[in-house]
């Protein structure tokens, strides 16, 4: 049996106990784990598990335990993969997360609904706008707030931009994991353009916090319309260029084809979500399943792929980006004039014009900062949106005060990572980075 290595952490003696014990547990788990690859081998043989001496199973001592991460350039954050290798094949994998755990759910309990908004930016920090919208919609559902139509369209445009931005990063980093560095620079150029739009719209490039409870913080400026239209046009060309480069690229295809494969049944069983689920042929997209904002009024298709491997997820995400552009263009055409914020001092902040020039406005602003939105006592609601990574949902419970009683975040990266443990088993160790890239986890969200 592979023995667990000695840890230098033991030197800390009695005081600094958690690290060795934590490791011990992981190694115990690795030994005790009944992996899918064992099931597969058993299925090939007489159906029973091999009951042989260890020396017979592994006479040349091919087995080793490899720790990848917590900080590995290809793990997209602090993700630790402890894998048991048989030669180059991963036999068992155990993922260890929690290195970035900030206790966001606990923090939310001590903040008003509005105060928690900037924290959502920092969850899936690659597409902050989606998180903002998910939070706003959940609170609005809980408190029964209706927002004006224009705000809904603005949110939709920005959500789709966030999706493109997130997928751009996924593609660039995925390319880099597979060995192509220049692709990373191309996709980051597009992300820069999207950041410029966010800068114009929200005043911040990265952590936008633009969507607010009861509407959005500010209306789009004429300049931002220009920027968005220009981006839509240029991005279509860029996307075509990427597809021309990658769709028939032999290296890219051979790195991705039949790698990290999950069947439809497995994907459902493991609870995969987002592109990882749709890449296996399951038609589950919250935008269609229970349409929020104005998604039931725009025309778009949801790409589905049957193969369930990394290549399928690649094609799927590129198609999703195309569809996002389509949605944005429709939004721009159909966006009506009007207010961008609910006109009720108990549901949304007053505009800054009101705050600066009227007494009532100032009082409302103060009250809203202090007490904020109030949901009825005992109310609870779950609202999910289709974030770039998958189903991002907030389950909120209210005790009638201005702060949420309990916030439960259903984070897509967390769900996807759980499935990844099983996907990795049976694949090659060199494919791990490609699989991690293709699953596209963001640890800020998985660790919450």
């Amino acid at each position, binding site marked *: 049996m592979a023995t667990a290595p000695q840890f230098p952490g033991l030197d*800390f003696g009695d*005081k*600094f*106990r*958690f*690290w060795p*014990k*934590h490791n*011990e*547990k992981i190694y115990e*788990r690795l030994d005790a*784990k009944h992996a899918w690859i064992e099931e597969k081998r058993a299925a090939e043989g007489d159906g029973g598990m091999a009951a042989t001496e260890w020396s017979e199973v592994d006479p040349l001592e091919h087995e080793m335990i490899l720790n990848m991460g917590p900080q590995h350039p290809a793990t997209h954050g602090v993700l630790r993969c402890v894998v048991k290798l048989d030669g180059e094949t991963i036999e068992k994998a155990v993922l260890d*997360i*929690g290195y970035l*755990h900030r*206790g966001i*759910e*606990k923090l939310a*309990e*001590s903040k008003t609904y509005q105060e928690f908004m900037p924290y959502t930016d920092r969850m899936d920090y690659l597409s902050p706008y989606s998180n903002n919208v998910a939070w706003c919609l959940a609170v*609005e*559902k*809980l408190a*029964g*707030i*209706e927002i004006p139509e224009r705000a809904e369209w603005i949110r939709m445009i920005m959500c789709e931009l966030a999706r493109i931005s997130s997928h751009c990063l996924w593609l660039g980093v995925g390319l880099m994991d597979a060995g192509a560095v220049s692709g990373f620079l191309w996709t980051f150029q597009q992300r820069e353009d999207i950041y410029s739009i966010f800068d114009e719209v929200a005043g911040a490039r990265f952590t936008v916090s633009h969507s607010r409870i009861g509407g959005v913080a500010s209306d789009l400026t004429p300049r931002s319309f220009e920027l968005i239209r220009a981006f839509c046009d240029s991005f279509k060309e860029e996307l075509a260029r990427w597809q021309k480069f990658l769709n028939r690229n032999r290296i890219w295809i051979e790195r991705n084809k039949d790698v990290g494969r999950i069947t439809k049944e497995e994907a*459902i*069983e*493991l*609870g995969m979500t987002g592109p990882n689920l749709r890449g296996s042929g*399951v*038609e*589950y997209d919250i935008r269609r*399943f*229970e349409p*929020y904002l104005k998604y039931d009024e725009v025309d778009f298709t949801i790409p589905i792929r049957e193969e369930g491997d990394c290549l399928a997820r690649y094609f799927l995400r590129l198609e999703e980006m195309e569809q996002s552009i389509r949605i944005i263009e429709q939004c721009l055409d159909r966006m009506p004039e009007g207010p961008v914020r609910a006109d009720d001092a108990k549901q949304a902040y007053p505009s800054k014009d009101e705050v600066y020039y009227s007494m009532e406005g100032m009082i409302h602003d103060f009250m809203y900062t202090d*007490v904020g939105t*109030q*949901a*009825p*006592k*005992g*109310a*609870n*609601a*779950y609202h*999910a949106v289709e974030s770039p990574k998958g189903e991002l*949902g907030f*389950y909120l*419970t209210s*005790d*009638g*005060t201005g702060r949420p009683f*309990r916030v*439960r975040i*259903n984070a897509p990266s*967390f*769900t996807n990572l*759980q*499935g990844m443990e099983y996907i990795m088993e049976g694949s090659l160790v060199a494919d791990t980075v490609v699989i991690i890239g293709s699953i596209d986890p963001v640890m800020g969200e998985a660790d919450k």
Partner: protein
Amino acid sequence: MRDDERNAQPKQEKREHEALKFYYTPMDEARADDSESNPHAKGATRIPDVIKALVDEFGDVVWNVETYAGEDTVFVEKEKIREVCQFLRDDLGFNYFSDCGGIDRFTEDERYEMFYNLVSLERGKRIRVKIRIEEDDLSVPSVTQVYRAANWNEREAYDMLGIKFDGHPDLRRMYMPEDFEYHPLRKEFPLLGVPGSLPLPPQTPEGELTMDPFAAAHGSKPTKSYLEPKSDYADDTDNE
């Protein structure tokens, strides 16, 4: 006048600073009929036929159905949660496990709650099943045999709230280290943490372990993350 009374200090009015409290005005209780007016209510969460099927199958095990914002929450007996999930998956088509998590209701009688969000992909419906858990008996049947995807979520609930899942294949802590004594999402766990509960590595190469990362907030002097150069102007008592 008795002796003890004579010797007693004259009562002085306490003139301690009291923090200004702000009392929120709690809103009305949530009413089921609010759901009609809720602009965000979805059709996917209205499932009267599913609830009827559940009641027909399990009878008293389903002891309450709550509706708010167009969402039905079905309360079932804790012991029967696995059977209910099995029935929902096999007979009613709720094959996709979306989410589950725990709630600490703190002052209420049955202190903890677990909720399970299930999705039927074919029918396009959602259901939320809830169980209540007594503080004295924190063990809950695990649903990992029914929904494999519940594995990490249940581990998270175990880590954060201390709810124990019977039959879970791998009940380790999710975020916190293995022998961390507390469950941080419980309401009584302080927001700034318990000093000394999670010793962190030394902040300087040769230094001591950091026993309290939020020392200043707990009323003591924080450890410096760097070796401060000696200054002529610094207060001597400061460096002791």
